[in-house]
């Protein structure tokens, strides 16, 4: 599935050879992928940590909204933008 097709009901997961890592030396989380490293902000980390190959983007946004007591619509929009960007880079699959 292409990045454009990733929607609220998609079930995203990290691509093959892609994983999260706690970067102790610099502080914060990074996404490790074949021959690249992406530095994650707290929001991106919170979303990616929840990719389990079962939950939809909407499920993930709902759980974040509940946990952070934040507006669900804005979180869903931000989550979709992040995941589409990573899908375009081949780092997230559906």
């Amino acid at each position, binding site marked *: 599935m292409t990045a454009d097709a990733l929607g609220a009901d998609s079930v995203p997961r990290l691509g*093959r*050879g892609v994983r999260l890592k706690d970067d102790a*030396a610099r502080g914060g989380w990074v996404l490790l992928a*074949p*021959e690249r*490293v992406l530095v994650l902000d707290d929001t991106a980390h919170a979303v990616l940590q929840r990719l389990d190959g079962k939950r939809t983007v909407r499920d993930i946004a709902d759980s974040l909204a509940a946990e952070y007591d934040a507006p669900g619509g804005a979180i869903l929009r931000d989550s979709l933008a992040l995941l589409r960007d990573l899908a375009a*880079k*081949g780092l997230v699959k559906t």
Partner: protein
Amino acid sequence: MGMLAELTHRCPLSCPYCSNPLELERAAGELTTEEWLWTIDEAADLGVLQIHFSGGEPTVRRDLERLIARARERDVYSNLITAGVLLDRRRIDALAAAGLEHVQLSLQDSRSASADAIGGYRGGHEKKLAVAGMVRAAGLPLTINAVVHRQNLHRLEELIDLSVALGAERLEVAHVQYYGWAYANRAALMPTRDQLDRATDTVEAARDRLKGILGIDYVVPDYYARRPKACMGGWGRRFVNVTPVGKVLPCHAAESITDMTFEAVRERPLAAIWEDGPAFERFRGTGWMAEPCRSCDRREVDFGGCRCQAFALTGDAAATDPACSLSPRHGHMVALAKSESGADRRDFVYRSMSRREHFGRGSSAVLRPPADGSGSPEK
């Protein structure tokens, strides 16, 4: 931060653009397993996030599994950069079981005859195709690395299609960078401007067509650039290279700069060498720069380009990289590319341990290809 771990300079292939230095290290001087293990520990402590196990051909080391396992234990991402020809299913499974996370497999061309001639290894291409399948069967992500130049660029489309057929997620299309062996073979490798433009169009079209299927990284050749690349993302900023004998370099080609002082992991801890070693201090930051770099608003974008290239083409490692159009030597570089790409030169100096004494950096001496005739890429 990434580390290139060059486990050995031994390799069954002898590609004429090999990134190893002209002075190849022999097996006897290589770091032992224990020395590599402590180096991996020191790298993890220093904050290295990815280790690229390379060479030479890293799979000639029987302790590769142990080194990968140590990286995994330390939560460092491991990448294997291999020519593939020594691998079989059992070894690949063992590497995967040890925790290997990604494989980068080189192809010299899309067709056997030409690929085997460029690599100087008969039967290599067919073996690589089989190995790609084994890598995928083991569940490992696969990147194909294709070094491109005048003698294979016309088959770039085929290389892209082949990468898709092999199940690769990524393809690196890397134009030859001219240091070391490639510098000695420049006249036989330099693409024409027209070839380069067509290759760039081909890559852009394929990226569109293969979105979500194959990601393509594209390394352009400096000789036709207007601005230099930010080599290594800036000297001593995010990359460290450890050679087979444990020398710690800011870039894998740094030994081509003849007046550098390198320290080794046998002498000092990796972190200390990184922190204040003379090789790292020499070109770190912007303080070393002269004009036109010093006052340039791109000085922290490209960091003055490549030190090795500056040295190779001007004799001064602190000069502006001639790939930059602001360099007084830029015109000379463009002229070199034009004249050499237009010449009908196809013979290579093959990388080897035994022939290194026959020529030096920048020498125009060219040795004959192997006597069996496999040296002709167009065969």
